């Protein structure tokens, strides 16, 4: 198996890498680029913990071949804050106490960002729809939804 050349944009920076063709995006991010903010849950596209944004749209990186991001722009949770300044969604998640174990939170924050970028003032059902691809086993979602509402008011 020969490694394939891959060039793409990650959190605004150009990345070039040589990777095995079977590599999935989540493994490229975590194991090759050492960005551990993206989580692995079910590994079959159901739990959404591995969500990242490709050209601003959420996708499940655990079932997304890494080669697909050639020439595309990828955003992970590491690209959300500006240095020490948290993104308004991250701040709202903290303020509302919306995080328990935290495993789903990178995906929640990114899907919320994708939603608010398109629809800055969603109602509750639109928020629930936007977040519906990420499972949270701790919180019952209420505070997460509240946090997104709060962030949308800013």
């Amino acid at each position: 198996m020969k490694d394939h050349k891959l060039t793409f944009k990650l959190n605004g920076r150009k990345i070039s890498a040589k990777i095995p063709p079977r590599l999935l995006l989540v493994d490229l991010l975590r194991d090759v680029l050492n960005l551990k903010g993206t989580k692995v849950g079910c590994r079959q596209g159901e739990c959404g913990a591995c969500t990242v944004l490709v050209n601003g749209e959420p996708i499940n990186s655990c079932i997304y071949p890494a080669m697909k991001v050639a020439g595309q722009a990828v955003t992970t949770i590491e690209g959300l804050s500006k240095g020490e300044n948290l993104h308004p969604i991250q701040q709202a998640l903290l303020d509302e106490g919306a995080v328990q174990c935290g495993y789903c939170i990178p995906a929640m924050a990114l899907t919320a960002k994708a939603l608010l970028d398109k629809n800055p003032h969603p109602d509750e059902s639109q928020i629930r729809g936007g977040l519906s691809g990420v499972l949270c086993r701790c919180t019952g979602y209420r505070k997460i939804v509240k946090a997104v509402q709060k962030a949308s008011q800013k």
Partner: protein
Amino acid sequence: MEYALKDFHWGKEIEVQQYLQPLTAQEALGMLAQHEGRALVIAGGTDVIPLLRQGDLKADVLVDITCLPGMGDIESEGGTISLGGLVTHAQFASSALIREKAGLLADAAGAVGSPQIRNVATVGGNLVSAQPAADVTLPLLALNAWVTILSQTGEREIPLTQFFPSQGRPAIDCRREILTRVRFPALAKNQGGSYLRLSLRKALALPMLACAVVVTVDPKMKRIKEAAISLGPVAPTPFRAAKTEAGLRNAPISKETLEEAARTAFDEANPRSSLLRGSKDYRKAMVKVFVRRGLSRALANAGAALTEEN
């Protein structure tokens, strides 16, 4: 722990030697021919990747067709709507044209998986996977869609009704052919459609039962000229309820007609008992409800609502 994970998909690697990204259809077909039998077409990959990981599908070479030009468009010409094989569920769930001219298809697309899946999964993939419960396949079947398939020997078109000869095996060979397009007639003024879906949750849940209906009414709004009803999963392949449809031809628009259709559908649907999707008896009973309610809504959308809504 290691032992426990051995046979679980988590512990398995995808064994792909090459990942090819052709820029034209000719190039893609050439690659498939070059690696004859060992290469497989991949589009969104939301089915292919999990199947490769589980070992249910094998391929040395993946030919990613998502960069092929012209296959990501939704077009409308002379009453016919055409979806490129690469159109994503998100794309046609939110398309104003599809909402207006084939609302049942937009409803079905919006129910698939999650936003993450819908952003990636394609209409071509949904058809090619040939699952009896495929959300988008059911309305396309009721809309009398036909698909265009491209191979090195040229293009062929086949009606969707002939696309599913047996379970999980569509009338296309994804090791040498590409589904380029699916077309169907836009709903006319005297037609209405509906899509109903029963699932455990509102997101990320496969349908326990789904029903797509398209009705055509006569100009006086007294009779059903024709009805197309597809159901899933009630048989090994996506299913058109032919006997129910025959009974509805030229039937008066009445509560009794709908009751009769529901009874016929109950008799001809044959779902299995499934731990995931519910018992056979329950789902058969729900077929009755869905056919009656689906027809009622489709009639309302055709402007021929029954006075008594059920």
